[in-house]
């Protein structure tokens, strides 16, 4: 379910009170991009580090966004692999 919350100095406060089963759990929060401070403004680091980070981003983007081959040209995913993927599907590791 989607709920509205207010972020206030490191804490999230739900507008509508909700009672949870557990004391601790992972939730996904939608943060407006414009609210995120540019990392270069937050940390006092040499420019070379920001340049290196930008270069690494570009390299990883190239791999991540590379066109994918057509499905029928790829090796099959076995039933065993699919089963494992299913088993892990609940884990988000956020």
């Amino acid at each position: 379910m989607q709920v509205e919350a207010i972020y206030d100095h490191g804490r999230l406060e739900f507008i509508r009170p909700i009672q949870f089963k557990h004391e601790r759990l992972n939730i996904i929060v939608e943060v407006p991009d414009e609210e995120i401070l540019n990392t270069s403004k937050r940390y006092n680091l040499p420019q070379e580090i920001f340049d290196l980070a930008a270069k690494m981003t570009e390299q990883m983007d190239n791999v991540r966004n590379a066109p994918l081959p057509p499905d029928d040209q790829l090796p099959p995913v076995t039933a065993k692999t699919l089963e494992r993927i299913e088993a892990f599907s609940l884990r988000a590791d956020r």
Partner: protein
Amino acid sequence: MDLLFDINVAVDICTKRQPFYDDSNLAVAKCVYEGGRIWLYVGSVQTLEYVTRAELKLIYKKAGEQVSARQLEKNARDVLKKLASDKHWLASLAGEGSVFDSVDPEDEQLIRALSRFTPGSIKLLTRDEHLCELYPDLTITPQKYLEMPSQLKAIDFIDLKTQQDLIRPALEENIHRVLARGQYIMGPEIKQLEERLAEYVGVKHCITVSDGTKALLIAMMALGIKAGDEVITTPFTFIATGEMIALIGAIPVFVDIDPRTYNIDPRKIEAAITPKTKAIMPVSLYGQCADFDAINAIAEKHGLPVIEDAAQSFGATYKGKKSCALSTIGSTSFFPSKPLGCYGDGGALFTDDDNLAKLMREIRLHGQDRRYHHPRIGLNGRMDTLQAAIVLAKMDIFEEEVNSRVVIGARYTDLLKSVFGVASPYIEPQNTSVYAQYTVIIENRETVQKQLNESGIPTAVHYPIPLHLQPAFAFLNKAVGSFPIAEEKSRQVMSLPMSPTLTMCDQQRIVSALTEIVTYREA
């Protein structure tokens, strides 16, 4: 400081997961900039793959893009391959297996793996706040890591870490093979290494030994050198050369060095030969061979054998021939900092002489020719199987490293040519040096060393006191002034950081610092 990736940070980077990506990626860049290494735990691979896949699936779904299970699989594996391409794999060890009593076995494995490192030298980079609360000294969040003041990468005098990173899989495999077989003394790796080294050097026989110092001792024992004999050598070397001559009861007869190469001066050898002289032992200092044609000609004229102390020159060439193949016996060391080093002590002897090879093999094994039969006095001088396994792994990249050493040495010389007051090493045209040390001549050495050290640049002196002035050789009664060139060089030499993996950027940093110091001093 090194970092070990927790799954969450690795997935942030692979999938550009917001809002975490920027900090996680910047933390990686900071670590690389500071010369740290980033480790991926081998035991995390499956989880890493499945979580990355799941996260990518979410992204595609959110973007309304249709991808098949196979395409998703390929995409996940491609980004993981990219992620791992410049990271280091941290092997799972047996002690990290039994974690079933732990609340979180996966985290427990990562925490246990950290205990292998020097405390404070590595942290688990994680966004898991619970884990950070439990292990505040072993973990760090990307934010906290980025808030730490940035430190420029430290320069090692000899960088063995980068080399280890390059050959880690081979090293681990070789070590595990020895452990699994359990033949720790004279295991099959010894024979493999001896064959490989003999082929590399281009001689008939290689006999591995426990260390470079014992190699010299065994060589002299095989040549029958005994108490009262004289062995001609250089006073400008590490103590082991003269020490072994004295230990056998013979007398080291020093001959001054060539002022340009710092190796024994062949023009002065003949005058030192007496009826008691039984061998000449030149040292191929700093990685450059001595003048063997001249030395061998004198030796032949007087019927003397020549032992090359090639502890620093393994891989170098003289007139196209490899060091250790230039004389009656070649002797080298695999001390960790040597051009070809192991992870402890080790050494090797080389010869084309069948009889000498047989004698040296027997001497290193308590003078034994067959089990429990000892026709001569020998010693315990065998190389450990584990050390041989390590050198075998290093042999795979050795030729490449030798080439890099030549390039890096030439680059130093080029960078230093216009620096007033710093003299680069002179390499004879017929030689190639492996630059075991890149040693310059400089005035006010101690002051320069201190200032370089303050700039984070380590240096060393090879060697500050020539052998004839060492208290241990006082019995030779060689006063100050006996070997003026060796004495002068011992006051002026200073070695700069040198490794086959030294980067151009680090070399420029070293030379810039040195230039600034000497220029300011001159001004």
